[in-house]
């Protein structure tokens, strides 16, 4: 979906955990899933600070 987002001008789109679980990963144990989510959000916040 990222190419679609970029095509309409959402240049700061980053890959998520997937369609059914954008900020999660149900295959991971709960503590690892929380780490995954935290890392993803940190990446998103970093992207907000970048020039596009």
């Amino acid at each position, binding site marked *: 979906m990222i190419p679609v987002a970029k095509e309409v001008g959402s240049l700061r789109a980053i890959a*998520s955990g997937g369609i059914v679980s954008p900020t999660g990963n149900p295959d991971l144990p709960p503590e690892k899933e929380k780490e995954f989510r*935290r890392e993803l959000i940190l990446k998103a916040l970093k992207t907000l600070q970048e020039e596009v």
Partner: protein
Amino acid sequence: MDEDNVGADLYRKRIYIVNSGPSIARMTPTLQRMAALGIKLARRESIGKPQDEGYLPRGIKRNGFAAKPPAERAVDMLLAKLRGEPFHSEIAAPKFAGSKPAAPLRDLKSAVIALVTDGGLVPEGNPDKIEPGRPTRFTTIPISGVTSLDPNKYDAVHSGYDTAIANRDPNRLVPLDAMRELEREGAIGKLHEFVHSTGGAHAAVENATRIGKDIASQLKTAGVTGVILTST
């Protein structure tokens, strides 16, 4: 009217607008087409396709029989495109106005970050009745004092993806728990007190545009400086 005339988009669905093009040099053929169309309307004759009668498309679709099946027509179009020959798409690709990305966030530690989603997060029971498909509105969910999205208090309503996983833990859709943690640690200034949520399944472009603008306007008024939008 010319197709780019502001009035064309406002009224094309309600009345027949003959495409005059941008120049008055075409006034004679335009008036002839208007007269011909007018006579047909007065006689209550059936009106043909926009490209045949010369009016701007009104967004009306009628079923009809074609000489070739759709697969053959699609391949014919593709072959024409590959050969660099003209072809006419049966469905016009939607035109997106596109938007200019915001300037980068300068200082994360003082930023007010909002969470927004098009994955259909709603409070339990969906009180604002957000539609699972073809949404026409968004909901504003207060999250003051909420540190994590409790699956008993929030649902995902969306016909475009399997919501079971998000329903078991809504933080997988809207990462509230992670954001609260970062707020507590001072990584961001503040997590905005509302989550704005809508659905993205079969959303009409006009509705999605309007919803997006309304959400953005509320966020700006509230002093939000950055948004994380999670999409399904």
